[in-house]
């Protein structure tokens, strides 16, 4: 998969489409949101990409524990890194959006707290990795921590926000986007945008994995 080209082309085409539609496409006119609704293609999609990469991390952690192949650990490590990048990007785009719609870049909102928590969890994951010099031991401990952390994080970002009110659309009495005008038009951009950013994340991750594998080979010689 890493070396085939069709999905990279797809990612590029969809990204161009996202940017094109994102900046000059038709959008519904809504109070408060106004033009900021375009951020939907750049903010929400970051979370989707981050989530996919975190699933990757947990999945490869499980694979490592079963197979003890350091390659799986490498993929887990790099997907956590890339998830971090997308997490921070999602946080920044969200802060810009919040500043113009809710009036402040940071509000006490379960969704935001969940994000801050998951970034902290993965920061701790890297601290653990750096604390262990031995390769296979590092891989094993990181996999155990990563799997545990992933489950806790899912509880935090999927379950807890459902139990409290949130400023986010579709929660706590706020109308969801799909309730009014996440119209067919926006859907046609939003879903491809999700796929585009996710593919981009996986692509970047796989490039990093390949670089590190080359580095391994050079060290062995």
């Amino acid at each position, binding site marked *: 998969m890493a070396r085939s080209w069709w999905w990279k082309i797809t990612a590029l085409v969809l990204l161009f489409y996202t940017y094109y539609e994102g900046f000059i496409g038709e959008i519904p006119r809504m109070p408060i949101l106004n033009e900021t609704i375009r951020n939907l293609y750049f903010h929400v999609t970051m979370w989707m990409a981050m989530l996919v990469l975190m699933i990757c991390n947990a999945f490869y952690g499980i694979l490592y*524990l079963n197979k003890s192949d350091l390659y799986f650990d490498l993929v887990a490590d790099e997907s956590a890194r890339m998830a971090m990048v997308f997490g921070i990007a999602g946080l920044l785009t969200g802060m810009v959006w919040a500043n113009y719609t809710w009036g402040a870049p940071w509000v006490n909102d379960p969704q935001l*707290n969940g994000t801050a*928590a998951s970034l*902290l*969890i993965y*920061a*701790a994951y890297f*601290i*653990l990795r750096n*604390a*262990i010099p031995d390769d296979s*031991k590092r891989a*094993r*401990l990181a*996999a*155990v*921590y990563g*799997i*545990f*952390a992933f*489950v*806790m994080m899912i*509880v*935090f970002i999927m*379950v*807890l926000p459902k*139990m409290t009110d949130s400023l986010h659309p579709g929660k706590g009495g706020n109308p969801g986007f799909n309730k009014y005008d996440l119209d067919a038009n926006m859907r046609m951009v939003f879903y491809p945008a999700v796929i585009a950013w996710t593919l981009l994340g996986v692509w970047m991750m796989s490039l990093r994995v390949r670089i590190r594998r080359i580095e391994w080979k050079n060290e062995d010689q």
Partner: protein
Amino acid sequence: MNTTLHQYLRLVSHEVRLEFKNYHALTSLLVYSLATIFIAYISYRQSLDPITWNALFWIIMLFAATNAIARSFIQESRGLQLFHYTFLNPAVVILAKTTYNILLLSVLGFINLSAFSLFFSLSIHDWGQFSLGLLLGSFGLSAVLTLVSGIVSKAHNQAALVAILGFPLLFPLLITIIKFSGNAIQGVEWSLNQPNLYLLIALNSIIVVLSFLLFPYLWRD
């Protein structure tokens, strides 16, 4: 099956006897949390409103728990660890350690509670609910921190790592427990607090099942 149960009970009682054998560790735990409470007291010098009371109490519990549980794998000698590796089932070891830590932290929790309410008087409306919350909170804190200290014990025993790795994982638990006991303090009706109770029970079960499944991978060295 019978031998497993037997092993489990023996291990728990072994932990208890070990603790009472060098009871200065136990006293140091007590002094640690009493000193923390006293620091909180001289910093505030006044009675607290319920929200601050609750938050402060749980923060002190968090630190007491970290301090108490961080040493659960560290205090064992190399020889004893080797003996455990050879003869015991790792899943039983983690369950026994977790059980012992739950007992320890529950007792410590009630001592903390009495000291805390001595310094900061507050009328808790529903003592039954609050105590239940304290038990469930101690349960969750112990279970997470025991697994984390198991991870850290393999990473050159850097005690500071327990807090760094454990705190982010505890966010969902802490949020739920603070909400639950906050409701108990204000005497919210039982039926309104039930969702939080179920969530706590679910979280605790997830944590225990995960450490049961993951700990054996830490074990082999």
